[in-house]
C-alpha cells in the first residue's frame, strides 16, 4: 500500500486530494506519539536511599530511638549508612538495581493518544450533527464544500485514526474468549462498526441520504467510549 493507493481510496470515498492530506496528518499524529509510550520519569542512576548521599551518619539529626546506633558505632566501628528497616537487603547487594522514582504515570502514552483521539471524534461528531443542513431534505444545500461535509470527513478520518491507535495500543486487551459482553470486546465491536458507518456516510454523501449511517456511527462511538470510560 503506498500513498497513491490511499489517495485513490480516499477519492473513491468522496474525499478530494486535499482531504487525504488531513487524513494522513491524523494518522501521523496518532502514530508518532507512540514513541513516547510508557517512558518512565526520573533518573535510574540515582541511589535508592537518601542516606547514600551522607558519608558520616553522625552528621544526621537522629531521633531518640537511634541513639542505639551511635552506641553501636562507638563499640563496633562506623556504620556505613543509616538504613530504613527494609534496606538491609539492598546494602547486602541483593537488590543491586535502583528504585524507580516518581509515580509512573506517563505524561504521554499510546493509551492517552487513543483516548484523546476518541474524545476528539465525539466532539467532531457533535459538530457535524449540529451543522447538518435542514435534515438533508433541502437539495440545494447538498454540496461537498459545506461545513457539514468537511466536518463529516474530519470525523470519519479521526474515527479511523482512533480505531488504528486502539488496535495498536490495546491489541492485548480484547479477547473473544471473554464473550461479547466483555466491556473491551463491546468497545472494539461498537467503535469498529461506528467508524465503518461513518466512513459509509461520508462515501455516499452528498448525493444520497446518509443521516442514518452517520448518526448510527456516532451513537455507536458514544456508547463504545462510555463503556470503557
Amino acid at each position, binding site marked *: 500500500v503506498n500513498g497513491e493507493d490511499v489517495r485513490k481510496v480516499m477519492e473513491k470515498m468522496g474525499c478530494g486530494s486535499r482531504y487525504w492530506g488531513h487524513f494522513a496528518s491524523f494518522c501521523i499524529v496518532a502514530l508518532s506519539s507512540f514513541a513516547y*509510550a*510508557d517512558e*518512565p520519569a*526520573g533518573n*535510574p542512576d540515582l541511589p*535508592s536511599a537518601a542516606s547514600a548521599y551522607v558519608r558520616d551518619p553522625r552528621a544526621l539529626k537522629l531521633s531518640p530511638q537511634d541513639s542505639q546506633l551511635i552506641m553501636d558505632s562507638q563499640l563496633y566501628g562506623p556504620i556505613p549508612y543509616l538504613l530504613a528497616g527494609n534496606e538491609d*537487603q*539492598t546494602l547486602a547487594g*541483593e*537488590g543491586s*538495581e*535502583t*528504585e*524507580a*522514582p*516518581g*509515580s*509512573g*504515570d*506517563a505524561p504521554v*502514552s499510546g*493509551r*492517552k493518544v487513543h483516548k484523546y483521539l476518541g474524545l476528539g471524534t465525539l466532539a467532531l461528531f457533535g459538530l457535524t*450533527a449540529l451543522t*447538518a443542513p*435542514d*435534515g438533508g431534505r433541502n437539495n440545494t444545500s447538498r454540496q461537498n464544500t459545506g461545513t457539514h461535509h468537511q466536518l463529516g470527513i474530519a470525523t470519519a478520518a479521526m474515527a479511523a485514526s482512533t480505531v488504528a491507535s486502539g488496535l495498536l495500543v490495546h491489541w*492485548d486487551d480484547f*479477547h473473544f474468549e*471473554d*464473550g461479547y*459482553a*466483555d*466491556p*473491551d470486546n*463491546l468497545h472494539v465491536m*461498537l467503535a469498529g462498526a461506528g467508524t465503518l458507518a461513518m466512513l459509509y456516510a461520508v462515501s455516499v454523501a452528498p448525493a444520497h441520504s446518509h*443521516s*442514518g449511517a452517520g*448518526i*448510527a456511527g*456516532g*451513537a*455507536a462511538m*458514544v*456508547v463504545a467510549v*462510555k*463503556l*470503557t*470510560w
Partner: protein
Amino acid sequence: MMRTKLKILAGLVVALPVAATPAVAEEDFMAWLLDFHRTKGVAPVTDERYKEECGECHFAYQPGLLPAKAWDALLNEQSLRRHFGANAELDSDTLRDVHDYAVNNAAEKSYYKLSRKISVATSEGQVPVRITELRYIAREHRHIPERMIKGNNGVKSLSFCDKCHTEAEKGIYDPDTVSIPNYPHWGD
C-alpha cells in the same frame, strides 16, 4: 435538524442500556450514565472498617476485584482460620461487617469497567478466590518476567498490587500508572 437530534438521543437511550447489561442494577444506572468521572478500574474502598481490618495485614483489595461468591467463600469463620496459610480470624461482628461490605460491592454489583470484566469472566463455572488467578488478571501479568516480581525485593509477589500499581488504593490499575520498583524501564 430537530429530527436529527431526536434520532441521536433515541439511539443513545436504546444503545447504552443494551450494551451495559452485564453491569447489574444495584448501583444506580442513571448515576453511572451521567457520571463523567472515569470508572475504568474498580470502585475504591470507602468502608473504614474494611480498610482497617484487611489493610492491617495486606493491601485492602477492593471488593470489585472478585465476584460475590468468591467473597462469600473467603470471608467466613472457617476460611479465615486458614486464610492463604495464615490465621486471620475476626470477631463475629467485624466479620459480618467486612463480609457484607465485600459482598455488597462485589464485581457484579459495580459499573466500574474492571469489575464488569471480572464479573462477565466469572459469571459461569468455578470462581477462583485468589485475585491473581482470575483469567484477566493472570493474562495481564503473564509477560512480566519472574525476576521483576518474585525475584524483586521491592515486589516479591503479584499479591502486593500497590507495590507497582501506584494508584491501586484509588482503584486505578491503568498500565500508565505502573512503576515496578528497581525496574524503571520495565516497559522496554
